[in-house]
């Protein structure tokens, strides 16, 4: 089975690589050719893997065993339901995209990225190792960046792409940290170990931080409040992308992860409260926001936010019924939302607008599309016999039976659903029904486009009719996988008259009423968005950029003197730190054993150094520097270092000559800067000098260890044939230093020649 598994994951990646070639060969039809890949995945899952009631397929490819990271895969009922959605809707979207992006010059790149995205999603839902999962998780973020920004000539597209990437990227990093904590607590990143170690993790001290970090990851991806705003903005993408990423796949990744890790995370009040609250808030805010939208895509986007909230809420409730409801609703939502997004694409494509206010009466011009879209909308509104109806029934059942705050949850759920019903009506009735708009030329597009809508919508219908098959083959295994125990599932349209049915009827009636009154209400709430989290994002970004600028202007001012001062200050602090810490153990010998000649020389040198500072002319400071240099030469001579003295003398002479030659060609000094600057710089420099004095005194406190000197004294003549020990060290014992030294000299001279002679014309240099 392993090859099949690997095909499911890597087939799409392989196809991504050849996508541009296919476009070159087949033109627009390349997308249909590529659709073979996801279609075959659906086929494999249906016919070859078969329904895995408790079934589980695993494959592991060793990757970085020393870090406990393997490329491992794990296919159970939960994976299957997602694989079917990703590959199934993927097939439809690919076929659709070929017609939608007909003759687009970047079709090849589009197909590459969408195939990468598909592969990433398939990999994500079949991962058997947290790090494998994370790898694909990040890949979905990255590939969606390129898909959302596909129309990149437009600044708004680029902005939305970045926003989506930053939000999901931040979530990704949080998730990574969470995974590492989880992995450390359990001792493995393998799902097989993780899923059975729920108790160990929940009782560890890392549970709460781990849970929070993982939830942030899931919530950003699945557009939960307050991270939801990137999703409506991501509608800047071409419609096939929206249909794919934002109905069935990318935004469901967070839901998938919550489901996947349900056995580990679920079961504590922290989990219920955090997940439940986020889900409920998202559900209601999304629905409210949706109702006020004019742009059909944004309208759908907000209902998606609401639906994601519902799913998260259900997983937060965490009971068997809730999980089951989540799976049915997941399926129903993906089918109708995919269909409706594609419908909006058709409307946009044919009429050039997505503004619900300026559309109407399209059913006459595009009957096939209208029919299919209405079918999808029925599922969205939760009317029987659609799958959406079953989903809604189960949803209410779960909410009513929630272990905490059932009435609040149910009330919120009903409100959200009423709004959803109204939005579904708004979408279809305002667009396709009613009087014709100004649009005259629209007509049904090619079958590749409306066929997809029809297929998805009818699947929603068929699934409702054959609910039992769906229950045993898809929902049951998925629920089993999430619960970690075998769950028998049966679904049906009719459960008799019960509170749930009554709630459903009430929802429909209120929804219809709301639709009837939608014009005044929408006028009132137009543009009203209850939660302005996007402002926080904008403010954070702007604040980051402003502080970056401020910091750079201050630290990287371009002033050498500032750089030197900061460097010196850092040195004082860093070296001062251990001096303070170890002060009691640091000793120094302070002896006043002054010899006359050296004292005089040292005094002269000190005076010369001050004169160098105070000198008003270049010449004066050079002479002062020379005096210091010659003074050192004399000190060397006085203290048994004739070689040093000679060298210092010669080098000083040459340096002074060079400086003199150069000075003739330099402008004279100008003013010296303000008095206060001079003062603190002098203070800093003085502290630097004092530090060095201290250091010398510290190291000379102990008697010297003369091992090397003793050896050289004994070996210099005997082994190296030289009587001048210093010279022997230079050319023999440590000859390598000297080799480096003359290399430095050589480069310096050659560099000096280049400095003075080489002239590169700016243009020529490019």
């Amino acid at each position, binding site marked *: 089975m392993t090859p099949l598994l690997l095909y499911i994951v890597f087939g799409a990646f392989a196809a991504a690589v050849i996508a541009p070639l296919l476009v070159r060969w087949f033109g627009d039809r390349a997308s249909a050719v590529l659709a073979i890949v996801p279609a075959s995945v659906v086929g494999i899952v249906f016919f070859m893997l078969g329904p895995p009631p408790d079934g589980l397929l695993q494959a592991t490819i060793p990757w970085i065993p020393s870090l406990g990271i393997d490329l491992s895969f794990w296919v159970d009922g939960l994976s299957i339901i997602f694989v079917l959605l990703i590959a199934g809707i993927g097939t439809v979207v690919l076929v659709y995209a070929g017609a939608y992006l007909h003759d687009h010059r970047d079709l090849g790149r589009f197909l590459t990225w969408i195939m990468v995205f598909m592969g990433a999603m398939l990999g994500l839902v079949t991962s058997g190792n947290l790090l494998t999962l994370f790898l694909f998780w990040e890949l979905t973020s990255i590939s969606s960046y390129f898909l959302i920004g596909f129309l990149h000539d437009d600044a708004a597209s680029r902005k939305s792409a970045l926003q989506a990437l930053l939000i999901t990227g931040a979530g990704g990093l949080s998730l990574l940290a969470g995974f590492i904590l989880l992995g450390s607590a359990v001792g493995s990143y393998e799902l097989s170990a993780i899923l059975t170690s729920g108790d160990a993790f929940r009782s560890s001290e890392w549970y709460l931080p781990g849970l929070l970090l993982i939830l942030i990851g899931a919530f950003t991806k699945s557009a939960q409040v307050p991270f939801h705003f990137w999703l409506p903005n991501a509608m800047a993408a071409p419609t096939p992308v929206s249909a794919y990423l934002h109905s069935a796949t990318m935004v469901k990744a967070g839901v998938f992860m919550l489901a996947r890790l349900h056995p580990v995370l679920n079961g504590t009040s922290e989990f219920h409260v955090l997940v439940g609250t986020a889900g409920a808030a998202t559900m209601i805010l999304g629905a409210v926001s949706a109702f006020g939208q004019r742009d059909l895509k944004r309208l759908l986007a907000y209902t998606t936010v609401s639906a994601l909230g519902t799913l998260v809420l259900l997983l937060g409730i965490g009971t068997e019924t809730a999980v089951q409801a989540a799976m049915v609703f997941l399926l129903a939502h993906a089918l109708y939302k995919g269909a409706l997004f594609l419908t909006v694409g058709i409307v946009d494509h044919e009429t050039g607008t997505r503004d619900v206010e300026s559309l109407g009466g399209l059913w006459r011009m595009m009957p096939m599309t209208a029919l299919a879209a209405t079918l999808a909308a029925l599922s969205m509104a939760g009317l029987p016999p659609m799958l959406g109806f079953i989903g809604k029934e189960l949803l209410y059942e779960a909410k009513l039976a929630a272990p905490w705050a059932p009435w609040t949850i149910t009330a919120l759920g009903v409100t959200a659903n009423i709004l959803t019903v109204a939005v579904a009506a708004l979408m279809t009735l305002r667009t396709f029904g009613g009087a014709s708009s100004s649009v005259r030329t629209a007509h049904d597009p090619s079958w590749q486009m409306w066929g997809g809508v029809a297929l998805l919508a009818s699947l929603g219908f068929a699934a409702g009719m054959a609910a039992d098959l769906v229950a045993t083959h898809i929902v049951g295994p998925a629920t089993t996988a999430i619960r970690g125990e075998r769950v028998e599932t049966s679904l049906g349209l009719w459960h008799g008259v019960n509170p749930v049915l009554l709630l459903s009827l009430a929802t429909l009636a209120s929804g219809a009423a709301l639709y009837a009154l939608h014009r005044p209400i929408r006028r009132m709430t137009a543009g009203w968005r209850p939660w302005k989290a996007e402002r926080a994002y904008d403010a954070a970004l702007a604040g980051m950029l402003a502080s970056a600028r401020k910091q750079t202007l201050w630290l990287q001012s371009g002033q050498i003197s500032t750089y030197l001062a900061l460097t010196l200050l850092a040195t004082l602090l860093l070296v001062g730190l251990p001096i303070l810490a170890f002060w009691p153990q640091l000793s120094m010998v302070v002896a006043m054993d002054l010899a006359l000649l050296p004292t005089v020389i040292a005094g002269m040198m000190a005076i010369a150094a001050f004169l160098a500072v105070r000198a008003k002319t270049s010449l004066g400071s050079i002479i002062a520097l020379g005096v210091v240099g010659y003074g050192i030469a004399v000190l060397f001579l006085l203290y048994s270092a004739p070689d040093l003295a000679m060298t210092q003398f010669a080098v000083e002479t040459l340096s002074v000559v060079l400086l003199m030659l150069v000075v003739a060609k330099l402008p004279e000094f100008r003013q010296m800067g303000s008095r206060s600057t001079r003062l603190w710089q002098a203070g800093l420099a003085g502290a630097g000098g004092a530090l060095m004095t201290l250091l010398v005194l510290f190291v000379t406190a102990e008697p010297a260890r003369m091992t090397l000197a003793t050896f050289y004294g004994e070996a210099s003549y005997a082994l190296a044939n030289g009587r001048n020990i210093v010279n022997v060290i230079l050319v023999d014992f440590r000859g390598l230093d*000297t*080799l480096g030294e003359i290399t430095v000299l050589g480069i310096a*001279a050659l560099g000096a020649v280049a400095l003075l002679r080489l002239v590169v014309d700016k243009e020529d240099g490019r």
Partner: protein
Amino acid sequence: MRSLILASATRVLLPLLWLFSVFILLRGHNEPGGGFIGGLVAASGVALYALAFGPAAARRVLPADPRTLIAIGLVLALGSALISTLGGGTFMTGMWSSFAIPVIGKVGTPFLFDIGVYVVVVGIAVALVLTMAED
């Protein structure tokens, strides 16, 4: 600048300085001195010559371009270090003649190394001075 006295003095001084520089180089292994000081002394002769007769003339006094001198010096130094490896020995191991020469003592690769230093230093000092003078 180019006085007659300086010119004639330089003609005498240059060979003397060069001779002296070689002396300093040769005695370096046993007495204070060595390739570095020797090289500087030799270079100061060239600098003096440049002062007296101009940089172009000073260039002609040298056996080669200063940059070539640097290269030759480096080859000598590196070569002396490599001699020991020819016989499979360790890099930079000193190899010595079995006899001694007056003033210098035994001749060995470290001595050759010091000559390399000498040549490099002549090259760089002359290059610096002449480049500045010609600028």
